[in-house]
């Protein structure tokens, strides 16, 4: 029990830090990466809270699909314009 509590705290702090970084980073690509890792952190959070099916969904859709959407958008824009 003790261990899980510590893990929860670590995950929580990491989530907040990553979210903060994602919002405040200057580069868009980096921000997206922070978002992605934050999403992975939330997957751990879901697992900790006994929601494995949600965790799987979040991992696949939230982390994977959303990140790739962001990246594709940024990449396609890079090709069109010069600044992103």
């Amino acid at each position, binding site marked *: 029990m003790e261990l899980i*509590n510590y893990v*929860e*705290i670590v*995950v*929580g*702090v990491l*989530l*907040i830090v990553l*979210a*903060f970084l*994602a*919002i405040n980073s200057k580069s*868009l690509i980096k*921000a*997206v990466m922070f*978002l992605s890792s*934050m*999403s992975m952190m*939330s997957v751990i*959070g*879901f697992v*900790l*809270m*006994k*929601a*494995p*099916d*949600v965790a799987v*969904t*979040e991992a696949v*859709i*939230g982390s994977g*699909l*959303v990140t790739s*959407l*962001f990246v594709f*958008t*940024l990449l*396609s*824009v890079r090709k*069109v*314009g010069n*600044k*992103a």
Partner: protein
Amino acid sequence: MLQYAAIVLIMLGLYGILTQRNVIKIILSLNIMEIGLNLFIISVGYVTDGIAPIMTTNHNTNSLIYVDPLPQALVLTAIVIGVGTTALGLAIAKNIYSKYGTFELDEMEEE
């Protein structure tokens, strides 16, 4: 424990929407808010010492405490909807970019 983090995440998301002037960043903040919201919803249904609400054959199901399954079902739906919104937002962001050549809301000329 995690629900406090979830609330902070929601606030951070709102903070991002309020402060960021970049289209992508705003969508990103929306995502952060949604993740926070999802965590919060799950934490509402979370029961300490409960087990995942999944049908298994090994246990005698009557004697165990399940965490509430309903919030989890809600979150599944919410995640999917969230992706839909994000995708739409990004598509609009792309349109904005091709029209104005920038993601910065402040750099677009007022119509």
